[in-house]
């Protein structure tokens, strides 16, 4: 395995408490994403795709029992979720969380400035923030009215995804993890998500696109595609893997891995 010193997941095992009994979901997962690349992970339901995204972003409920995750030379698993965000990890949620009583603009400004502070950058004042956010909302065809609303409260599915993309662009991550961001999206919303990722593509930006379908990958062209099953990566290849999966299903890979 080559050490790119960007994201290296080695023999990762993680479990969750399932009504008192620990249930292992990640079972020795290896994954390497070099800087500037977009990788896709595809796999059947229950293969552990969402768990991987939560473990990488630091959700507490998951207990890592073995293995390591190195990100930009650091032990990612030792960091709090906010420290991971400051280091450049961004998770686009499958189901963005509603925050009643929290104003969307205030939330975004607090987040941006927390990250800037942690990265040693100057915080944005009200005017600077407004200028930056207006440029982004315009780009995403979002109305300013969405900034005045409570975070994700009463948002349509498409609006929630736009809001995720807005956050992603404002927080300028170096690793975006998209957790089935395409689920339940119409074609317009799908394009917005894809444009959001594509607009950030460059030598300092990588993405891990977790998806159930080929559809999103028609808009975000991955450099590599990984097939995940039973908590492990069982096959990796080029973009052609996604097409093969779409045409022939998972059975072939599952048998080969068994």
């Amino acid at each position: 395995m080559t050490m790119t010193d960007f994201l290296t997941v080695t023999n990762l095992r993680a479990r969750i408490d399932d009504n008192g009994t620990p249930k292992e979901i990640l079972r020795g997962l290896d994954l390497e994403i070099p800087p500037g690349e977009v990788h896709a992970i595809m796999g059947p339901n229950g293969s552990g795709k969402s768990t991987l995204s939560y473990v990488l972003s630091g959700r507490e409920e998951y207990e890592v029992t073995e293995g390591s995750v190195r990100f930009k030379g650091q032990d990612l698993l030792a960091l709090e979720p906010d420290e991971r965000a400051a280091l450049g990890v961004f998770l686009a949620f499958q189901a963005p969380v509603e925050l009643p009583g929290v104003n969307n603009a205030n939330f975004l400004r607090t987040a941006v400035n927390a990250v800037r502070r942690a990265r040693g950058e100057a915080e944005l004042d009200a005017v600077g923030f407004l200028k930056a956010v207006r440029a982004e909302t315009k780009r995403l065809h979002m109305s300013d009215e969405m900034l005045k609303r409570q975070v994700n409260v009463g948002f349509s599915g498409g609006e929630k995804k736009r809001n995720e993309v807005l956050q992603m662009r404002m927080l300028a991550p170096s690793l975006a993890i998209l957790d089935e961001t395409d689920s339940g999206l119409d074609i317009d919303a799908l394009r917005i998500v894809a444009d959001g990722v594509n607009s950030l593509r460059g030598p300092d930006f990588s993405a891990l696109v977790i998806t159930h379908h080929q559809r999103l990958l028609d808009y975000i062209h991955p450099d590599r595609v990984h097939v995940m099953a039973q908590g492990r990566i069982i096959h990796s290849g080029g973009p052609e893997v996604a097409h093969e999966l779409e045409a022939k299903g998972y059975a072939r890979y599952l048998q080969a891995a068994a």
Partner: protein
Amino acid sequence: MNAITTLQAPALERFIARARGDVSVLRGDLPTRAVEAWHYTSLRDVAKVPFEDAPDADFEAARALIDAHFPADLNMARAVFVNGRFTPDLSTGLEAFDIAAFSPGSGAMARPERDAIAGINAALAQDGLTLRVPQDVDAGRLALISVDVGQGRFSTHPRHRIVLEDGAALSLLDLNFGSGAYLSNPVFEIVVGDRARLTHAKVQDEDCEAFHLALVYADVATRGLYDSFTLTMGAALSRHEVHAGLLGGHATVHVNAAQLLDGDRHADLTSVITHGNPDCVSRQTVKNVLLDTSHGVFQGKIYVDRIAQKTDGYQMNQALLLSDRAQIDSKPELEIYADDVRCSHGATVGALDEEQLFYLQSRGIPRDDARAMLVRAFLTDAIALIEDEGMHTLLDAAVDAWWARRS
């Protein structure tokens, strides 16, 4: 009950000795928890203390406390009471208000013969704000600042009487703070005339060794509005008790509150809202944020008279428990004798939502800041209920200061 005798002395004996008013109103005992209205709040610690007369005011100490609690840039007239006494030297902007001299016998609404706490105030009150807003006059905003400061165990018993004549309006900011181990025992007698509108925003931020036992009597006439919000953050033990009467048709009463408690504090919000006429509206949202081993109490009674048809009553009590050892007691009560009414009430208790916390953290916001944001969000809709929007900023700032102080 033998428990009653334990509460009799020495506080009450000392109150009787100090009383300048009618001592007969003190011939009861302090209520014990055997009394239904005091089931969740024990006055045991109050009863033990022979509270003395308040010492002479230390102006510099009072001024320093006011500077710490009252935003300097706040352009608002203020009536300042130090240790229960009106203090002109610290008050400003009162020329525009119709304020009369205090008269000891003016308490007609409080029922000292029925209520021990009202009785103590009736017997010991020496001063208070007597304010009248004339017919159809909008008097704007006024801060009523009560500062108790001094050594030893002393008590203050101001009695404020606020009358809004028909069509009048006033926005009152009622601030309570101090330094020491005192008992603050204010009583408000409030009359809101026809079409008159009173905002009563209270902040109780007393010393952590102090007691605060407040009573508010508010009568609201036809189409009048009593719009109150009480933010409770301080005192070792406190109770804010409201008796609101809807005395004319289409009158409205809001008894909203937030209790933010840390340490071992105990705070009680008790209200009795009496719908005595048809077509009246009462609204009550009471939020509790409870840390450490604090204890919040909510008792809310809505009484609907037989003639009070088309009553619209709403009552909600919510508690956010931020510690395993914090506690909330909630007792909503509806007593309805009319048959065509709409009354609803509810209560919720919960912790902060882990999913929301993770979402905020995943956006780079440190955990304690994320907690603060969610606590503020929990309180937002309650504070937003105050119709005078100028008060929102003030209360928001008080909440922020509280959070910063305890963390």
